C-alpha cells in the first residue's frame, strides 16, 4: 500500500491548553491608522516584480449566541493592500461570497473600504460609497457582494474590513495564508468554546511565525424564541480557547505544469466540526468516523438508500439488458455497457444523488454519483456485489484518510466483486472500457462505501503504466521514394484520447493531420484503426507511407524516429517549486527497420546510447546497428513513476534534454559512386 507521497497535512491539537501564548506580537496595520510613512515599503521583503503587495491580511472567527436558541459564527476580515503598478489594479476588485440555504443566509455587516493616496506628502482618503457595493445573486445557494475601490492609482493603499455573520457552524471560515500577491503579514485567530470541537487541518510548505493559544472565560447570551410565548434569554459560561496563527513575508502562489492542483500545496488552515456538547447534554458527534459515515451514507436518500432496496422496477429491463450473458462477469459487462452507452453524465463532479435512481433510469441522465450508484444498483439486482467508491479527482486535491471529510470528495465510481476479482467501474464516460477508470481518478486515497464497512482504496498515478509500442519497416520497393509500413499500439489512455479525436473529426481527418506532420512530400495508403469500438482495448493504428527522396542530392539525411519521439523538452521551465505530478508512468518502445536505399551507402550512423534515470527509476535507450542491407533501431523510454519530488526536477529536465537530442539525430546516406 502506498500512501500519498506528498500528503502535507499536519494535525494540530484539538481542545485547550496544548500551546501557551508566548510573544504578543502585534499586527502591523489597523483600519484607518495610516501615515505617509506607511507608503514606504522599501524596507520590506517581497518579490521584486510584484504588481501589488498585501501589507496585512487579518481574519478572526468567533462564536456568539444568537436569537434562534443557538450559536452563530462571526468572521471579521481586515485587509490592507498596496497597489504597486497597473497590473495590481485587479487587487482592488473585491468579491465576498455568501452562502444561502432556504431562509437562512450569511450576512455581511459593517463593510468599510477606503483608498489612500499620497498627494504632496499628505495622505488623502476616498471612501467607498454604499451605493457602489453591488449584490450579484449568483444562484440559489450563493450570492456575492462586489465592489471596486475608488480613486485608485499606482501607489495607492487600499483597505477594507467587514464582518460576516453565519448560522452555518460547519462553515467556520478557513484561512489561506498564501495568495496571488506577496503578503507581509497574514494572521488568523479563532476562538472556539469548549462546547464545540473542531478538527484543525493545516497544510503547506511554509512555517508559522507565530502559533499560540490561550484560554479565557466567555459568557454567551442566547435567546430562545418562544413562539406564541415570550422569548427566553439565557446566559452560558464556557471556556474559549483562542488560537492565533501568523505568517510573515509569505511568497505568492505560482502555478506550474504537471501539478494536480495548487490546493494541495498552498499554505492554509481549515476547520471541520467534529462534535459538540452543549450544557449537560450528551455529546453530539457530527463528523463521526469512516464506518459511521459510511453507514449513514448508505441510509441516505442522497446516496445509497436505493441500493438497499430490491428495486423490482428494474426486473423487466434487466432481463433485456443481460440477455445472453453466460456468467456474472458477462452480465456485469453488459450492464456496464448499457449504462455507459445510454446515459449522459450531466456533471462529472458530484458525490450526492439529487434524483432517485429510478428517475435517473427513466431520464437517461444524471451526475457521476447518480450514474455510478445506478450502475451499482443494477449489478446488485443481478446478485453481483457492487459498492460505491467515493474519491477526489486530481484537480480537486487530496482526501483525508483519517477524518471522514466528505467535502474533500467530488466523485463516485463503483467497485464490483465478481468471483474472486475486484473491478473498478465508471459508466460516466462513453470512451471508457469495463474495468478502467479515468486518469483524473488516480489521486491516492479513496473510500469504498458499504453498509457495514468503509475500506480504504488507493488509486496512485504511479500505478498507471502506459505502454506503447511502435514499429516501422522501410523497404526499397519503389524508385525515388521510401515505402514504409507504420504500426503503433498506443497506451490505454492515449488510445482513449485518440478515440475521442476520431469520433470528433473522423478517421480521414485524423490521418490527414498525421500525414501533414511528416516533413516533405509524404502520402499515406492502407490506413486503418483497430479496436476503435472496443473501449476496453488499446487501439492499433497502421498505415503505409511513401516518402519522396530527392535523388539529385549526393547526400541524404534521415531521422529514423520519423514523426515519433520528443521534439521538445516537456520540462521547459528552469526552476521548480512543487512536486512533479504526471498522470502516469510510461514505457514507450519504438522499433525501426530500414532497407538501405538502392544506390546509397550508410555514411554515418548515430551512436547507440543508454542512460538510467535515478538508477532504477527508469531509462532511455537508443540502440542502432546496421549490416550490409539493413539498419535497425530500438528506442525505448521508460519511467517507473508518475510523481517526483522537486529535487528530482533538474534530473528530469536533463534526462529529457538528452532524449530530445538523441531522438533528433540523423542517419547520413551517401550515393554510391
Amino acid at each position, binding site marked *: 500500500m502506498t500512501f500519498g507521497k506528498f500528503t502535507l497535512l499536519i494535525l494540530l491539537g484539538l481542545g485547550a491548553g496544548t500551546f501557551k501564548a508566548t510573544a504578543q506580537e502585534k499586527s502591523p496595520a489597523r483600519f484607518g491608522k495610516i501615515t505617509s510613512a506607511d507608503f514606504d515599503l522599501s524596507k520590506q521583503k517581497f518579490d521584486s516584480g510584484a504588481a501589488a503587495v498585501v501589507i496585512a491580511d487579518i481574519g478572526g472567527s468567533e462564536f456568539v449566541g444568537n436569537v434562534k436558541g443557538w450559536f452563530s459564527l462571526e468572521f471579521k476580515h481586515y485587509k490592507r493592500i498596496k497597489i504597486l503598478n497597473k*497590473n495590481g*489594479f485587479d487587487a482592488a476588485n473585491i468579491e465576498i461570497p455568501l452562502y444561502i440555504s432556504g431562509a437562512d443566509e450569511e450576512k455581511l455587516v459593517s463593510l468599510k473600504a477606503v483608498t489612500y493616496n499620497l498627494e504632496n506628502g499628505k495622505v488623502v482618503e476616498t471612501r467607498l460609497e454604499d451605493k457602489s457595493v453591488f449584490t450579484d445573486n*449568483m444562484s440559489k445557494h450563493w450570492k456575492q457582494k*462586489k465592489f*471596486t475601490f475608488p480613486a485608485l492609482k499606482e501607489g495607492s493603499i487600499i483597505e477594507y474590513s467587514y464582518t460576516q455573520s453565519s448560522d452555518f457552524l460547519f462553515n467556520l471560515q478557513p484561512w489561506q495564508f498564501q495568495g496571488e500577491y506577496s503578503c507581509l503579514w497574514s494572521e488568523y485567530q479563532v476562538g472556539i468554546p469548549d462546547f464545540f470541537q473542531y478538527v484543525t487541518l493545516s497544510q503547506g510548505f511554509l512555517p508559522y511565525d507565530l502559533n499560540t493559544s490561550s484560554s479565557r472565560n466567555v459568557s454567551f447570551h442566547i435567546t430562545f424564541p418562544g413562539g406564541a410565548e415570550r422569548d427566553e434569554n439565557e446566559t452560558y459560561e464556557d471556556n474559549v480557547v483562542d488560537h492565533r496563527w501568523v505568517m510573515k513575508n509569505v511568497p505568492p502562489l505560482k502555478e506550474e505544469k504537471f501539478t494536480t492542483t495548487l490546493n494541495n500545496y498552498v499554505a492554509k488552515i481549515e476547520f471541520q466540526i467534529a462534535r459538540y456538547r452543549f450544557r449537560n447534554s450528551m455529546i453530539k458527534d457530527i463528523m463521526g468516523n469512516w464506518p459511521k459515515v459510511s453507514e449513514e451514507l448508505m441510509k441516505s436518500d442522497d446516496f445509497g438508500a436505493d441500493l438497499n432496496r430490491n428495486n423490482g422496477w428494474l426486473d423487466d429491463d434487466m432481463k433485456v439488458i443481460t440477455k445472453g450473458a453466460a456468467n456474472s462477469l458477462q452480465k456485469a459487462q453488459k450492464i456496464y455497457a448499457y449504462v455507459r452507452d445510454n446515459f449522459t453524465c450531466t456533471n462529472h463532479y458530484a458525490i450526492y444523488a439529487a434524483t432517485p435512481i429510478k428517475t435517473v433510469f427513466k431520464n*437517461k441522465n444524471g451526475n457521476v454519483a447518480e450514474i455510478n450508484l445506478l450502475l451499482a444498483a443494477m449489478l446488485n439486482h443481478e446478485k453481483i456485489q457492487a459498492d460505491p467508491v467515493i474519491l477526489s479527482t486530481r484537480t480537486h486535491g487530496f482526501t483525508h484518510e483519517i477524518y471522514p471529510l466528505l467535502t474533500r470528495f467530488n466523485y463516485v465510481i463503483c467497485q464490483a466483486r465478481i468471483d474472486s476479482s475486484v473491478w473498478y467501474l465508471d459508466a460516466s464516460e462513453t470512451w471508457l472500457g469495463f474495468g478502467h477508470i479515468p486518469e483524473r481518478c488516480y489521486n491516492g486515497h479513496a473510500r469504498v462505501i458499504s453498509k457495514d464497512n468503509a475500506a480504504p482504496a488507493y488509486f496512485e498515478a504511479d500505478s498507471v503504466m502506459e505502454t506503447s509500442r511502435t514499429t516501422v519497416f522501410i523497404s526499397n520497393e519503389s524508385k525515388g521514394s521510401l515505402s514504409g509500413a507504420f504500426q503503433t499500439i498506443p497506451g490505454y489512455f492515449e488510445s482513449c484520447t485518440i478515440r475521442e479525436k476520431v469520433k470528433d473529426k473522423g478517421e480521414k481527418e485524423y490521418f490527414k493531420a498525421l500525414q501533414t506532420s511528416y516533413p516533405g512530400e509524404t502520402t499515406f495508403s492502407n490506413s486503418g484503426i483497430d479496436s476503435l469500438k472496443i473501449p476496453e482495448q488499446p487501439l492499433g493504428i497502421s498505415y503505409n507511407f511513401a516518402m519522396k527522396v530527392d535523388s539529385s542530392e549526393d547526400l541524404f*539525411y534521415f531521422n529514423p524516429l520519423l514523426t515519433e519521439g520528443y521534439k*521538445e523538452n516537456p520540462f521547459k*521551465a528552469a526552476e521548480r517549486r512543487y512536486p512533479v505530478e504526471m498522470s502516469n508512468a510510461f514505457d514507450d518502445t519504438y522499433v525501426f527497420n530500414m532497407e538501405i536505399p538502392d544506390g546509397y551507402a550508410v555514411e554515418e550512423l548515430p551512436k547507440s546510447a543508454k542512460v538510467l534515470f535515478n538508477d532504477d527509476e527508469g531509462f532511455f535507450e537508443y540502440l542502432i546497428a546496421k549490416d550490409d542491407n539493413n539498419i535497425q533501431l530500438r528506442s525505448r523510454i521508460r519511467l517507473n513513476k508518475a510523481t517526483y519530488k522537486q529535487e528530482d526536477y533538474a534530473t528530469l529536465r536533463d534526462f529529457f534534454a538528452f532524449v530530445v537530442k538523441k531522438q533528433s*539525430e540523423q542517419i547520413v546516406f551517401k550515393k554510391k559512386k
Partner: protein
Amino acid sequence: MNSISTVKKPSPVWEIRFHWLLASCLLAAPFCGIAQSYNALLIPDSLKKNARAVVREDEFILEIKSPAKAVTKEHHVYTILNENGDNIGGFTSSYGKFNSISSITLTLYDAMGKELKRVKKKDMEDRSAVSEGTLMDDYRYKEYNFYYKVYPYTVDCQQEDEHTSILDFDDWIPLYNSGISTQHSKYVIIAPKDYKVRYKPVNCNYQPVITESGDKKIYTWETGNLPARTTEVAGPAWKEIAPYVLMAPSEFEAQGYKGNMSTWTDYGKFISQLRAGRDVLPEDIKKKVHELTDHLTDSRQKVYALYDFMQKNTHYISIQLGIGGWQPFPADYVATKRYGDCKALSNYMVALLKEAGIKGKYVEIRAGSDAAFMIEDFPSFQSNHVITCVPMGKDTIWLECTSQTESPDFMGSFTGGRKAILIDEDGGHIVKTPSYSSRDNTQCRSVNAAIDAEGNLEADVNTVYSGIRQEFPHGLMYEFSDDEREKYLNTKLFHLPTYKVDKNHYEEQKGTIPVVKEYLHVLSPNYANASGKRLFILPDIFDRSSYRLPADSVRLYDFIDKEAFTYIDSITLRIPAGYKPEAVPQDVSIDSKFGKYKASVKVSSDKIVYFRRWEEAANRFPPSDYAALVKFYEQLYKADHNRIVLVKE
C-alpha cells in the same frame, strides 16, 4: 493565473446583444400553420448532409405595441443529429432591464417524435449573467439541458418575452451557423400601421410579404430547405456568407429617453441626448487641464498631454445597469472614482479636451481583431465599444481610452482599419479608423549567436517590433508580471528543444506606429544536432513558419489574409573551428501575389550568415487561387526548415 492570451486591455465590450446563433430560443403558444411532426425520419437527406443539427421550425414574432413596448413569441424546433449538435439542443435565454421572460416551454422528443419530457420556466435554474471582466450588470439567464444522447432527438422550445424598450431587434438569421441546416424559418413583425419597420437583407434578397389587419401592418419573411454550409480555414466570417436580414426600430424609447434610428443623424442625436450635461468636470480637474496644456502651443501636444493624464489617472471598470449599457457615466464621476468603462472614459476624455479648447469626438465602433464589418447603410446598434477622436484637418488623432499604456493615435488590430460612427452635435457620421500596412507591422530580428561542437547555442537576440506586431510584446511589457513574462519567455516563446532566456529587456517608443524593442539572451543546449562527425543546423533559429494548409479540399470561399506584415531576420551564427559545409540550402526567392519571401545563407570558415525577409499585404484571394496558396505556404515551410550540414574536416 497567467493569461497568455492577447495583449489587449480587458475587452471593453459593453453590450452583447447580438443574437447570432443564440440557442436562446423562445416560443409561443398558438402557432397556426403546418401541423408539426417531430419524426426525425421525415428530414430530407439534403438537409442532413454536413449537418450536426437541423432547424425544423424557426418562428419569431415581434409585436410592436409602442416605441417602448413589445412582445416577442418564439418557437424553435431543433433535431440534433449527433453529439456535435448538442449545444443547439441546450437552452439558454438571457433577460435584463428591458425584457422579461413571460413563459418558456421546452419539450424533448425521441427520433420517432414521441414526447419524452416537458419542462417549464419554473423548472429552470435562474442565474446571474454578469460577465467576466464586468463588475456589475443586470443580465440574468435561464438555462436548461435535457442531456439526452440517443440520436437523433428533437427539442421544441417556446418562449414569450415582454419588452419595455425596443432599442434592438433580433435579426432574422435563417441559417444559424456552419453545420446546421434549416427546414423552415419565419420572422414576423406586427406593428402599428404608421410605425416604420426597418430591415435590410444581407447576402440575400429576402423581402417580406406585407399585409394589413385592422390598425396593424404585418411583415412576414419566410424561407426553407436551406442545406447546411461549412466554413473554411482563413475563410470569410459566417456573417459574410450566410443570408440574413437586419432588423431595427425607427422610433424607440428606453427608460424615458426617446429616439429614432432611421438615419445615422437621428442615431447620433439619441446618443448625444444620453450624454447631455455629462461633460462637467470638477474644478480641480479643470485647473489641472489648464496647468497641463496652457503652456503648449501645438494642439497635438495638448491632446497627448491630456491623454497621458487620463491614462495615468483612470482605469477600466465595467458597470452596465439599465440605460447605462448605452449611456456614459458623467465626467465628474470618472474624475472622482478614477474609473469607468469605454463610454465613461471616452466621454471624460472629450470633456478634458473641451476644457482645453479642443473639439474631441465620441466615436462608437465595433472592436475586436475579428469584429464583423459594419453595415453602413443600415443605422442600428452595431457597436460594442467607444473611442475618442480629435479631427485636425487631414490629421485626425485617435485615442483608445480604456488602456493605460497604449500610444496616443494608435488603434491597432483592436479598432484599426474599420468604419465607425462619430457622434457630433448634429448627429452621427461614418468615419474610418487608420489601417496598418506591411510597412507598419514589422518584426526585425537581428541575432548574434554561436554554437559549439556539441551543438549548444548561445544567442543575443535583438528584435524591433512595430505596429500590430508590437501588440503582443507591448502586452508582455505592461500586462504580464515579471514572473509571468519570464515564464512565457522560457516556455512558450520559441520552438526550441530545450532552452532558457536568462536575460530580457524591453523598451517602448510611443507613436502613431508604436515600436517595442526587445533584447533576449538565449541559451539552447543541443540546438544544433551533433551526430558523430556532423553538425545539423537549422539556420532560421527563431521564426520557422509552421503554417501549412490542408491540400485536398475543394475551396468554396475567398482566402483572407487579415493582417499585413513584414518579417526580417538576419542571423550571424559563429561555428566551431574544424568544420566544413557538406550541405548548404540554396537561396530561395519567391515573389508572388500572395507575398514576397527571400532566404539566403552563406557559410564561411567561422560563421553562417542567414537572411530572411517575408512580406505579406492584407488581402483577399478568390477560391481559384487556393491550390496556389497551398503551394506557396508549402514552399515557405520547406525553406524555413532547410538545414545546413557541417562535417568535421
